[in-house]
């Protein structure tokens, strides 16, 4: 017998809210992060095969594109960290009021930009 389990309605039928933007971005950054972690695993594994195999990757990572990717990944991680904290707080039963979801959504969006700057400066030993 064919299984007719219900699927999620398409996102286009909903009116846009801060919460939906944060929720969709949470899924998108989650996918970006796991693709990036896979590439980082390949990068780390290539170290085993010696410096010759590392030259090309090092060239890309030192270019403008490399710096853009690193900064973009920092934002993606920052967003995921803050959004996951928001999810955990909601799992404990807090922050479901409409106004609160708007505020926490905005905190995640703007906080992720701020956290990106802090992480970048920390990583580069500038603070």
């Amino acid at each position, binding site marked *: 017998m064919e299984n007719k389990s219900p699927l999620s309605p398409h996102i286009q039928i909903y009116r846009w809210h801060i919460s939906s933007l944060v929720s969709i971005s949470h899924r998108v950054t989650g996918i970006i992060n796991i693709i990036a972690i896979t590439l980082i695993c390949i990068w780390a*594994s290539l170290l085993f095969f010696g410096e010759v195999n590392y030259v090309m990757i090092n060239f890309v990572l030192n270019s403008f594109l490399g710096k853009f990717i690193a900064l973009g990944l920092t934002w993606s*991680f920052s967003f995921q960290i803050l959004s996951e904290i928001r999810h955990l707080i909601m799992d404990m039963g807090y922050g479901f009021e409409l106004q609160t979801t708007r505020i926490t959504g905005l905190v995640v969006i703007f906080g992720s930009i701020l956290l990106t700057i802090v992480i970048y400066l920390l*990583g580069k030993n500038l603070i």
Partner: protein
Amino acid sequence: MNLATKKWIFLKISSIVLLPLMLWFIVNFIAIYDSSYLEVVEFFTNSKSKFLFSLFIIFAYFFSALSISEVFEDYIEDDKIKYVANRVLFISAITIPLLTIIFLFNLN
């Protein structure tokens, strides 16, 4: 306790463990991503970095596999496609971190 509840609990536990590991990793990634081969090797051969990075990728893949399987549940109607997608996902979530950890622990 049904399977969906167990999955939810594992998802939440892994996300709590993953949060500090993500923060640790991204700060260190920014510190080393444009460094020389020897500096990056030095980072990955350090016992603390090796241990934390291994833990990070294990939990990242575990968390992602559980999360993405939820997305499959929401958006894939065909049971056969969903089954294959989940198998591919879980096999990748085991083999990619395992191979990376083997390479890292053999790095000198």
